[in-house]
């Protein structure tokens, strides 16, 4: 952490006419990191990536790569390469020629180009297809060629725009791990844009969640999932039960929160002091709750209700429980027993409980 960050984004704003796509974003990315920009479509993540690539110029603020201000440097002079969502492979060139293209622009000697192309083809396991044209490749193969082409110049930073968006689910999962392995091997800083939270969580060391042109939270996948800083982030990443209420009292880090929606009071843990009477949201992840026919003795937070829906996902089931107050709560539970012995059924009366430490108090 003593080294300056490889990429520093300083108060960057991008406007298109009246529309502000990126609004006062500050972001530091370290050498060798795999960073994911995550957000719904239109949140400005792609615009931010395109500014890093040089395809858009910031309206305000600056972007430094390795300490040099590149805000107005054209893409063809930046030490950065991009893997495009559509792959943008040159259709009139073979796989080899596509990979060699960037190296030829650098006037690299022919022998060295051939060597590098060979190494790149090896890395993405495309050597047998070197002479093919992009039109003769499958989607997954094209994705590999695009990756090889963008890594061939050994850029300081690789930008990936929805790199797996065009692949089907099975191939996507397989490629996710491959991409992480390749990043590990080459040691290049990767910045990826994705709308798929699972993809971001699986692949990235750090995730930046964007909302309406601003960064809502930056953190490791663990941080953003376990301790989101806002309702938005809690909702966006994974499933969550959001329980609104007002603080009615507290003892140490355990706070009493009266929830009109639940019709009772619950206890939640929060290290910082909370003013009595303030409105807060308590977030409890469905898998942090346990569900059963009998209430767990000594549990602090207990609710009872009736199962209205069961989503059976194979490895686990998600139960929708309707409380007496009318509020619905989601609880998920791993299906541990073969054959589903003693499993809960529709319309059963159940009891839900969770530990105060497994909930998060959100102030925003």
């Amino acid at each position, binding site marked *: 952490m003593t080294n300056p960050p490889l990429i520093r984004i300083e108060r960057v704003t991008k406007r298109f006419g009246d529309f502000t796509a990126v609004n006062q974003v500050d972001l530091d990315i370290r050498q060798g990191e795999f960073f994911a920009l995550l957000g719904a479509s239109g949140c400005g993540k792609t615009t931010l990536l395109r500014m890093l690539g*040089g395809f858009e110029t910031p309206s305000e603020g600056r972007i430094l790569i390795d300490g040099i201000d590149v805000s107005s440097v054209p*893409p063809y002079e930046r030490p950065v390469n991009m893997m495009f969502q*559509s792959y943008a492979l*040159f259709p009139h060139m073979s796989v080899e020629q596509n990979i060699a*293209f960037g190296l030829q*622009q650098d006037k690299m000697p022919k022998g060295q180009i051939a060597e590098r192309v060979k190494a790149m083809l090896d890395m993405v396991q495309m050597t047998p297809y070197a002479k093919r044209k992009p039109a003769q490749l499958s989607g997954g193969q094209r994705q590999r060629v695009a990756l090889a082409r963008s890594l061939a110049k050994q850029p300081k930073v690789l930008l990936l725009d929805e790199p797996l968006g065009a692949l089907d689910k099975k191939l996507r999962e397989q490629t996710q791990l491959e991409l992480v392995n390749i990043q590990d091997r080459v040691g290049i800083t990767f910045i990826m844009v994705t709308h798929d939270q699972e993809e971001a969580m699986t692949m990235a060391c750090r995730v930046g969640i964007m909302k309406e042109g601003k960064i809502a939270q930056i953190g490791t996948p663990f941080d953003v999932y376990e301790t989101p800083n806002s309702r938005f982030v809690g909702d966006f990443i994974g499933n969550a039960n959001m329980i609104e209420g007002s603080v009615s009292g507290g003892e140490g880090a355990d706070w009493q929160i009266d929830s009109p929606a639940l019709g009772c009071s619950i206890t939640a843990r929060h290290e910082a002091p909370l003013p009595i009477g303030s409105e807060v949201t308590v977030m409890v992840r469905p898998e942090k709750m346990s569900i059963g026919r009998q209430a767990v003795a000594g549990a602090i937070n207990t609710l009872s209700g009736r199962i209205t829906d069961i989503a059976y996902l194979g490895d686990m089931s998600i139960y929708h429980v309707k409380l007496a107050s009318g509020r619905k709560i989601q609880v998920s539970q791993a299906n541990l027993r073969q054959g589903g012995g003693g499993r809960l059924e529709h319309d059963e009366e159940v009891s839900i409980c969770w530990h105060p430490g497994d909930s998060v108090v959100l102030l925003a």
Partner: protein
Amino acid sequence: MIVSRRVKQRLGRFLVVLPPYGWLVVFFLLPFLIVLKISLSELQAAIPPYKAVFSWAEDGILQLRLNFGNYSYLFSDDLYVLAYLNSLKIAAFSTLLTLLIGYPMAYTIARAPSRYRNPLLMLVVLPFWTSLLIRVYSWMGILKNEGLLNSFLMWLGIIDSPIQIMETNMAVYIGIVYSYLPYMILPLYATLEKMDLTLLEAAADLGCAPFKAFLKITLPLSMPGVIAGTLLVFIPAVGEFVIPDLLGGPDTLMIGKVIWAEFFDNRDWPVASAVAVAILILLVVPIMIYQRTESKVEAE
């Protein structure tokens, strides 16, 4: 039941293709066969000015008299070979000019904001609403010695006496380039417009400056349009008659003018027909190249 449906389907297909094929047979194949027949006949001072190829001899025998002399005559006189070569030269040079002028125009239109594209294309096609003949006549008004261009240049003081443009090859080039420009622009526009612009971003990303990216990406990808436009201009320009006749001078030697002279001035229908058949055969070669590249592009 199945068989009858198949028969119906075939009949339907046949009826659909019948009109265009019928049109081609009646208005292209038949006239061509007539021209071919005349080219193989002998000249005579009568009406019509050639001897019959088919005739009935005694005892009901059909006689066929083929005269290949008209074709060998084409090689005996330099005029025809020269006219053909000159036509190729004029057509090739004007095609090149059309390409050099048409490419930037097509490029600009294809890269213009989408709301301007259709109006701009409309402007390219607009001259077609006036007859070619009238447009060529108006070029005479512009190019002649006391015409608009010379008067304007003299008024500006750039020249003291009119430049002779009318009745030179220069005027023919101007006329052909002007008349055929839309045939170049439209196919070029079609290929340039559908090009994926992220390819240029990818090229820039890989370190390629804009002009080089044009040479390495845009130009090769627009080759189908270049080839289509080139052939659409070159092939009719070789046989062009109206433009060289009206704008060109007595020295402008083009095959179209030669055919006209043989038919109407010399009334030598057989030789005129032989010239027409020869030029058709010689032009079939570039057409076949065109079709081959087209089908290759489609296969890709």
